[in-house]
């Protein structure tokens, strides 16, 4: 019996493939295999002999079976190893091309601005880009022949013959939305109005269309000091700096009184803007306390309500924050520019996650 064991274990160990192994299995432990034949011989034995030979044969069968299983698994591992050795790919080849979309800086920055002001309770208001001259000028205390009208380089819409109304204008600022919002919602009111505006000007630093964001806060006791705080908070948050110094300079806008232009302390060292340090001042926006006539035009009683308004260029603050040199390129849709200055689709600016990465 030990010969048998020796023989088959040797055969199994020497088997080189699964077919051979199967032959060995049939020959050894198959129905007509040698072990089975031996089993049949058990009947001819004495009970004593059987008591010894029976378990021994069963043990032999088990041993051969497990040797077969182990060999089979070893053979299949070897076969898999062999196959995997052959399955080689050049992983340095490029992956499947996937288009990478981008968000335009104007959209991104508009969302950044909205996120900041939303936290201070400002809603986002919108208005038509073609507007009446009343909303664009008169309601904002810019009467018919005010020099400011001529200075605004206004685009006018064509008027059909026989239509004697004053021509509509392409809004020269987002301020008409102030009036429309006051009419619609009354006071108290806190809104920002981002959007495109138009002026007939085209050179190195001017495009006939650009983007502004207007802010308006009206309540019973809002002061210019509140305006300064709101702008300080905005500038810190937008430019992502811990501290910033704002300078208010007296100025004039027909729709605010008093009016101030606002500068931020900055440095231009090495051509890069750093907000909050240095000795330069950068003018970023115009602001002031809403003129009583403007409140009246919006249907709000200036004896009861007061508030501030401000306006700044979205394209301009985008250029400053992200170091974009040329305004005209914003509207040229050059793929290289869109890819370089654009933002990822999932880079949604939030205050809790940060405005930029």
């Amino acid at each position: 019996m030990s010969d048998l064991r020796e023989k088959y274990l040797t055969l199994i160990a020497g088997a080189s493939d699964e077919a051979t192994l199967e032959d060995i299995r049939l020959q050894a432990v198959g129905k007509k295999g040698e072990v089975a034949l031996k089993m049949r011989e058990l009947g001819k034995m004495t009970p004593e002999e059987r008591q010894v030979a029976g378990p021994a044969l069963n043990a032999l069968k088990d041993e051969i079976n497990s040797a077969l299983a182990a060999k089979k698994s070893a053979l299949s591992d070897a076969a898999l190893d062999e196959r995997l050795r052959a399955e080689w790919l050049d992983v340095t080849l490029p992956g499947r091309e996937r288009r990478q979309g981008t968000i335009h800086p104007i959209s991104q920055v508009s969302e950044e601005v909205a996120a900041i002001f939303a936290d201070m309770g400002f809603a986002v208001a919108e208005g038509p880009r073609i507007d009446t001259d009343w909303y664009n000028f008169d309601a904002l205390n810019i009467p018919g022949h005010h020099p400011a009208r001529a200075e605004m380089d206004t685009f006018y819409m064509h008027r059909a013959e026989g239509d004697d109304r004053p021509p509509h204008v392409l809004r020269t600022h987002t301020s008409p939305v102030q009036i429309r919002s006051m009419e619609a919602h009354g006071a108290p009111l806190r809104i920002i109005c981002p959007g495109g505006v138009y002026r007939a000007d085209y050179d190195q630093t001017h495009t006939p269309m650009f983007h502004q964001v207007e802010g308006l806060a009206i309540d019973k006791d809002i002061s210019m000091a509140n305006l300064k705080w709101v702008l300080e908070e905005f500038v810190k948050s937008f430019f992502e700096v811990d501290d910033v110094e704002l300078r208010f300079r007296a100025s004039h806008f027909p729709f605010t009184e008093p009016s101030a232009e606002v500068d931020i302390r900055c440095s231009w060292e090495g051509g890069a803007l750093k907000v909050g340090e240095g000795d330069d001042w950068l003018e970023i926006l115009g602001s002031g306390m809403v003129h009583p006539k403007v409140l009246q035009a919006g249907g709000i009683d200036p004896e009861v309500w007061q508030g501030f308004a401000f306006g700044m260029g979205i394209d301009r603050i985008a250029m400053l924050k992200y170091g974009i040199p040329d305004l005209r390129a914003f509207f040229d849709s050059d793929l290289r520019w869109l890819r370089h200055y654009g933002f990822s689709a999932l880079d949604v600016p939030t205050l809790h996650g940060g405005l930029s990465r």
Partner: protein
Amino acid sequence: MKFTLSWLKEHLETTASVDEITYALTDLGLEVEGVENPAAKLSAFTLAKVKHAEQHPDADRLRVCTVETDEGDKQIVCGAPNAREGITVVLCKPGDYVPGIDVTLSVGKIRGVESHGMMASERELELSDEHNGIIELPSGEVGQSFADWLAENDPAKVDPVIEIAITPNRPDALGVRGIALDLAARGLGTMKPAKTAKIDGTFPCPISVTIAEDAATEGCEVFAGRLIKGVKNGPSPEWLQSRLRAIGLRPISALVDVTNFFTYDRNRPLHVFDAGKVAGGLTIQRTKGGETMVGLDEKEYTFAPGMVVISDDNGVESVGGIMGGLATGCTLETTDVFLEAAVWDRIQIAMTGRGLKINSDARYRNERGIDPAYNMQALDDATQMIMDLCGGEPSDVVVAGKVPDVSRAYKLDPARVISLVGMNIPEAEQRRTLEALGFRLEGDMAWVPSWRPDVLGEADLVEEVARIASLTKLQGEPMPRAHTGVPKPILTVAQRREQIARRTTAALGYNECVTYSFIDQAGAALFGGGTDATMVANPISSEMSHMRSNLLAGLLQAAARNQARGFMDLALFEVGAVFSGGEPGEQAVQVAGLLVGRTGPKDVHGAARAVDLFDAKADAEAVLSAIGAPAKTQVFRNGEAWWHPGRHGQVCLGPKKVLATFGELHPRVLEAMDVKGPAVAFTIAPAQVPEPKNKTATRPALVVSDLQAVERDFAFVVDNGVEALTLVNAAAGADKALIEGVRVFDEFTGDKAEAQMGAGKKSIAVTVRLQPVDKTLKDEDIEAVSKKIVEKVSKATGGTLRG
């Protein structure tokens, strides 16, 4: 507005430095745009004395001088004829930059003799055009700074010139005296009394003045003048010339320079006629249209009807308040001069000035507002100056109209000032400020000075007080939130949708563009626009003449520009306003995406292919789904003309409500836009997508079945014109409870298909997924529903099951 420091000091007694003055001006709202300080470029030069001068050994015209300087005696070769012993000169040393010759000096050898610097002429230092010899100073010590010497002895030469920007509300600051008043109110000095003259005429004025009825309202308020006879016109004195030159004006003659002086000194435009050339009296009247006049700028102007002019018997002689006429202008030969001081209607000046396209100093000031109360005094002051400079004898004053009364008062509410500005400015300080600016306080009423047309209400008083107090000192004060607690969302549904549409499209691989809202007429017309209703009356160029009615025009132009740069495969999109008309509100937000070329560059996987309309459709559907459009929509054809007629679809809710359109662009449109195809696109109208009815965030419960779903495939032979969606809908309708979904997985068309199935036929194959709910499906159940599917499809499409 330009002025010099010494001019300012004519009105303001001050010891403030230029830096202090410019800081205050900007802070007061008179923004300094530039300061030109001539002393700065002279800072290196010092005084020296010529101790000895002798002939150059090798040059007739040169002298070799021994010059005493602060660094000891130096040898300098000089070619000036006046270089001689004993004179005090201005020395430029080696290393100094000499502005007039644009040279940095070095020690040189002139014809073999060393020269250690130079002695300068006025021209070499850019002090004047004088170059006949070197500067000889009547006084001064060796080593003294030349700039200091000038400041002491000839201050006009080193007078700093300050330029400020004037906001339209501050005409008073268009005169040096007005600027001085602001600075004095700020505490930078005290005002000197204005020089006022009192002139008594010695004879009646022979020239009459009349304001015609048509110009009496909204034309000319008051027109005053007088004749000064026997004047001798000539160049004005050096002090006046240099003052005008310093601010960029060209001195002309004493008479004209006087009017320019008053323009800048007191914001008081005046005009002088050569009385000898005036025929008859002067009448202010409106033009009938077609009259012409040659102005002092020697250009001919033709008048439109209704412009206000000054005429004599010969016709129009002056555009009142804007520009005089050449024919009656003063020349050096003028002996009798008629001096005019008038107050014009500001709006009328603006309209006439704009109509004639004249931008003169007079128009600028008369349009913004002069001090009407100064009108008569100005006449005397200017008469005095003319008599001082040119002699002559004054007539009585003739006047037409009346100096307008602009007196008005507003209530000063000190508490309101504090509340609006947020600065604690004591009442006494508020009153002091206003008085310093020329307001007169009677109780709590502040009377506005006649030179401040901008002050028209209480708010303007607040501004004056705040401005003088300095907004730079304003401290920010937190503004509490309107509501306590976590801020609520602030975006509207439309705004959210716009944002989601934008970010979804970008996530699908499109690059966002922002293109101009106006495009050329031809481009607009290709997309249903370009009509007069959306035309800009004064476009900046013909490329930007019409408001866009569709974003695709701008995107196609952008694609063409990128293709010209060699980028052929593009995915561009824009979210923006499109205009259906020229009235406010005739605008809507559109989302447009454009795919051009291939899905990507040639690649090793062979995945890139030409874009087709199903790319555009899939993207449109993804965006629609993201903004909450219902899953079940219809697809119609018959979209607008810029789509390929057979290769586009409109995603609709009913026949009228078009949510989106997708498809291939019409080849003619691509050709016109110079875009090399293929090009497919989609446009979405977010406003057409119904707002969600469900206001709760809770989702309906998920219903899932544990029973095995079964899929069965069916291939139908149908006519070529049959649309897959019809077939799908028919199949899905066979058993709404059991059929979970129907998906097209194959379409077999073309010659081979027709060869197999007959002419005009194609095959569409669908997978139907059956999801049992209460019991497992048996073969006969499946058989039954299959039969119904085939029946429904046959009925709806006329198709048959493919054998």
